[in-house]
């Protein structure tokens, strides 16, 4: 148990310190890096609690996937120093209250859960030899099937919403309906015709007009200096 405690007192303060770094560092890119440290040290705490699958999932989804997207955004928009006007004292107070409320909700929930479902020795042994993946999968598809599905629908909604917001052409407007119609151009009127006559079709025209070929040859001769 000593080792467990030592490791816990490495990971937990690291997580808290890095979390403070996320909030207080003035450079956005360093904040994002601190966020990675937070997620990875929480993954370490998960490992200490025999939640190996959760730890690895945390690393993949939050530690890398999420922060890569954040870094992506920062790099597109530039790493501007934080503007103090964005957080007025009122807003700061509001954030503090929300955070404190969340904490006040989470801690009793965790303690309650711990008290009603203390892990048995056999369960811990199973976790340590076979890992938690199988048990987690069983729980998700039997006891917690409905919350699982609801969460997945929520994620799907978020994804569809993001696509709709970012792709303005998907909203049917006059412009898009024109875009995919086939206007009569110099190339032809039907799609096949246009496709055949398109300049960038991938292969050269079958036969070159003789006059053009001659002029080309003459130009080349001039360029060489014959």
């Amino acid at each position, binding site marked *: *148990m*000593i*080792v*467990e405690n030592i490791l816990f007192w490495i990971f937990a303060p690291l997580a808290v310190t890095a979390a403070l770094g996320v909030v207080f560092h003035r450079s956005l*890119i360093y904040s994002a*890096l601190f966020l*990675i440290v937070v997620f990875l040290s929480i993954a370490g705490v998960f490992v200490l609690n025999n939640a*190996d*699958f959760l730890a*690895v*999932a945390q*690393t*993949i989804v939050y*530690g*890398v*996937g999420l*922060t*890569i*997207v954040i*870094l*992506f955004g920062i*790099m*597109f928009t530039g790493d501007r120093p934080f503007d103090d006007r964005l957080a007025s004292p009122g807003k700061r107070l509001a954030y503090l209250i929300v955070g404190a409320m969340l904490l006040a909700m989470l801690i009793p929930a965790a303690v309650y859960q711990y008290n009603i479902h203390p892990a048995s020795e056999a369960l*811990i*042994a199973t976790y*340590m*030899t*076979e*890992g938690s*993946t199988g048990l987690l999968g069983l729980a998700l598809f039997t006891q917690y099937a409905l919350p699982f599905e609801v969460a997945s629908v929520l994620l799907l909604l978020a994804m569809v919403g993001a696509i709709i917001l970012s792709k303005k052409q998907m909203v049917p407007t006059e412009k898009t309906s024109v*875009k*995919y119609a*086939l*206007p009569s*151009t110099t*190339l032809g009127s039907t*799609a096949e015709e*246009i*496709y055949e006559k*398109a300049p*960038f079709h991938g292969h050269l025209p079958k036969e070159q007009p003789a006059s053009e070929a001659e002029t080309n040859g003459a130009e080349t001769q001039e360029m060489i200096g014959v």
Partner: protein
Amino acid sequence: MTVGLNVMNPYQLPDWFIQLHVWVSENIPGLSFIDIMDPWQQALMLFVWGVVLFVLISFGVAKPSVVFMVLMERKVLAWVTQRKGPNRVGPWGLLQTIADGVKLLFKEDVMTPGQDKLLFTLGPVIFFLPVFVLFALVPFTGAIAQDGEIVFGGLLGIGLPVGALLLFALSSISVIGMVLAGWASNNKYSLIGGMRSAAQAISYEIPLVLAVLAVVLYAGSMNLMDIVEAQRGPLGMFSWFGIFLMPLSFLIFLISSIAEVNRIPFDLPEAESELVSGYNTEYSGMKFAMFFLAEYAALFVMCALTVVFFFGGFMSPLAGATLGGIHWTSTLVGTPGLIAGLSLASALENMLGVASGSVAPWIIQLEMVSWMVLKIYFFIFFAMWIRGTLPRLKPDQLMGFSWKFLIPLSLLNIFMVSFWRMWLPPVKDLESMVANFTQNMPFGIVWALVLVVGIGGFCWFMSELQTRKLKARFTQS
């Protein structure tokens, strides 16, 4: 079993290791808190043992093989393009990489004032570190057990129940290093290289993991040792679905793994014709060497994973088969109940006329390592061959290929593999395999038709979509 081994031993620690720890805890006062009874302490011991092996593997396997691979790459490319390759330093140019390494070591470490010093240094380190930890997770050989007791530990740093998932977690961490390097260089080409690498890694991680998900589904475990064990069957290596039943996972995995390690035709993050050298443009000296080493190490690990997931890992191609009246399996190996078919060891036993399992453990270990290394280098050669053959893709083609083709295909693949799992579960003897086949023949025929129509239809649909897109583009212009 001897000292204190009637205690709970959930990790199957080797005998000599526990004896060593008992000795340490009894004789060294500072370490007397180590309690052999406690599963946690055993986990710690396993960790320590893993670290020792990890250092051994990392310095004994990874670094020499990377040095060799650089030379091999140049020689293979020379062979493809009909040149001689490096042939000045040492016999056949064998010392070329060492000379290059010395050159890089003595180069000046250039940093321009606009660069973020900390992140610029951190980039190569974050890129380098996870790749070398990956070596600890790959099972190079299995442990050997006799009469249910492990007598010879395998060359596996850390065996975990979530090994397959942790591999991808770690390999994705190195992407952060690339992005940071691109950002901290304060160079637009580096930045574009870093961004491309991030986009590419996110896109190709999904088909990669989905392809492995099919393997995990069929093997029924995420432990790499169990996955290797599941590939032993009545037809040897060929009974694994990777060859006959399910080649699709393997193809998806191969393509995505080449994209994950940023090699031609997917080397957009370092496309030299457009981005100078991509995210490592500004790097020189040892930092550049770290990028270089880590890239080759990642290629090695990816090829090792291809072998572990699809080609029987350290087992011989005949693992578990009965051929010519001989059952090509000699010794209990690895996790409890794991039997590797080791054809050479079996052949030796048959030749000498001794009982099964009497070949010395180190010979079997040597055979396992040989199979593993042989298979890995075949795939490394394959990757180099591809590099010498195929041209580079455009960024939009790259993204489209992953999101519109590989991901739907890998979802289809998982669907199919789950049916295979039901129809033809992994069995260990030929009789039950044949029985499964004959019992489910009508269903199998229908399913095969569905497969052909499904995959063919999907590929036709995708190509049709592409043609229509092209037509629409020409209409616009």
